[in-house]
């Protein structure tokens, strides 16, 4: 994509920049964004929002020194979310299914999994409590996007009587943006990234989803967004992810 993005004007941008901007568009109004460890692209998105907000948006990046402003130990992040202070959170998933269930525990039957993954971390909790959870998994394949996850680390929806103030709203991959409809418990294709087709999306998605016949194309980064990414965001992120910054922002 970085060579000649099909829908671009004169702008040249990297895949990482495109995805960061696409993620950022999902969380425009968030006052406090939290990014998990080892997640440079979501971190870039969060810092882009912070830059666009003139600094008023707060960003917490787990595992970083610079963007970790908690002072009450490991529990604070979760208490903070339960207090309703966390607006947006990015999370991945070894498997994601069409009901937005996510699996971070293992592929195959538990416990003798075919592939044991690290574990659910905070997902089982934050998935219920953060109003805008954005699923981000770069790989778009039938291996990842499955009809039914082998293990539910965190459920996409809950019965009406269960206390739930948050949940998945968006899924962003290297191919698409999907919006999750909790009432229908289904994803709807929101846009396809430049250079890809609906057929390709069907081909590489293991679950059913709603779509129009001609879904929109995901907007490409604006000049302003690229300037911020290569300036503010890169400066902020370089101490945390030096290698990533060089690759993503070319600086």
């Amino acid at each position, binding site marked *: 994509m970085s060579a000649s993005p099909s829908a671009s004007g004169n702008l040249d941008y990297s895949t990482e920049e495109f995805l960061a901007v696409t993620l950022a568009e999902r969380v425009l109004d968030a006052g406090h964004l939290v990014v998990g*460890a*080892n997640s440079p692209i979501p971190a870039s998105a969060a810092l882009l929002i912070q830059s666009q907000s003139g600094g008023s948006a707060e960003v917490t990046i787990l*595992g970083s*020194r610079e963007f970790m402003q*908690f*002072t*009450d*130990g*490991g*529990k604070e*992040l*979760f208490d903070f979310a*339960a207090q309703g202070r966390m607006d947006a959170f990015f999370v991945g998933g070894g498997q994601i299914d069409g009901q937005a269930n996510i699996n*971070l*525990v*293992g592929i195959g039957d*538990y*416990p*003798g*999994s*075919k*592939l*044991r*993954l*690290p*574990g*659910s*971390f*905070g*997902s*089982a*909790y*934050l*998935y*219920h*409590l953060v109003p805008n959870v954005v699923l981000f998994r770069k790989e778009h394949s039938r291996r990842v996007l499955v009809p039914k996850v082998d*293990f*539910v*680390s*965190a*459920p996409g929806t*809950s019965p009406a*009587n*269960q*206390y*739930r103030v948050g949940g998945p709203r968006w899924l962003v991959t290297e191919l698409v943006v999907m919006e999750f409809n909790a009432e229908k418990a289904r994803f709807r294709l929101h846009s396809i990234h430049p250079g890809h087709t609906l057929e390709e999306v069907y081909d590489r998605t293991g679950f059913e989803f709603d779509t129009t016949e001609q879904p929109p194309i995901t907007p490409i980064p604006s000049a302003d967004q690229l300037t911020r990414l290569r300036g503010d965001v890169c400066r902020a992120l370089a101490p945390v992810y030096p290698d990533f910054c060089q690759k993503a922002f070319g600086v």
Partner: protein
Amino acid sequence: MSWQPLEQLVAQIDDGARVAIPPDYSGVAMAATFALLSRGVRDLHLVAVPQAGLQADLLIGAGCVKIMEAAGVSLGEIGLAPRFREWAQQGRLQMMDATCPAIQSGLQAAEKGIPFMPIRGILGSDLVALRDQWQVIDNPYGEDDPILLVPAIRPDVALFHAPLADSRGNVWVGVRRELMLMAHASATTLVTVEENYDGDLLADPVYAAGTIPHFYITGTSLAPGGMRPLGFFGDGSVTDSEHLIRYEKLARSEEGFFQYLEEQKIQLAGVNQ
């Protein structure tokens, strides 16, 4: 209380002990772990607070761990934890899969001397069915409002590495208060320490704010660099990625894992293979 040698410190961890360990970013007592490996400790129940990495993988690979209670075990950006992965896949490990805040709440229940703590979220996760001790009740303060209860987690031992301690045994952990929670919740707290603090940490109101008082601390050992090859919040050092990359590669096979231990000059006592 006063300083004690590292061997004496780890001698207080019995076979079968339930041992709380911090995440990789929060002061892992690696030198103590190497000493435990050499001693050939057995049947540990590790409680990751709330996740673990190299430390757990080494202990698992060397056959020291019976039960693994964690919200996640991995080498972070380096990748999956290879020995954990294989032992879990082969069913050689009793897994107690959790989610981060459930472990924090369990420790807080122990800290407060209460049998359980309610916690929001989590319902609908397959974790709930896996964990016998997790119960769903109807919120007595709501109506038709199911809520999860998790039982107290009372470790026998909390084991970690801290930046500073004084000769009374007060231990400074700064903002890394999961270490304080571990100490409050555990019967025994053993700490390796980067540096001696010359004075009384509790007498300085600025240091006191980040200090675990000595009466929670069972023993301290001076062990500069005792977190290596992991990074450390105390001195801002970062994880030795090359070391971990090599470990991850070698430890994909059992043979490679033992080759790594040999390279690290860790002599295993009575390996249970």
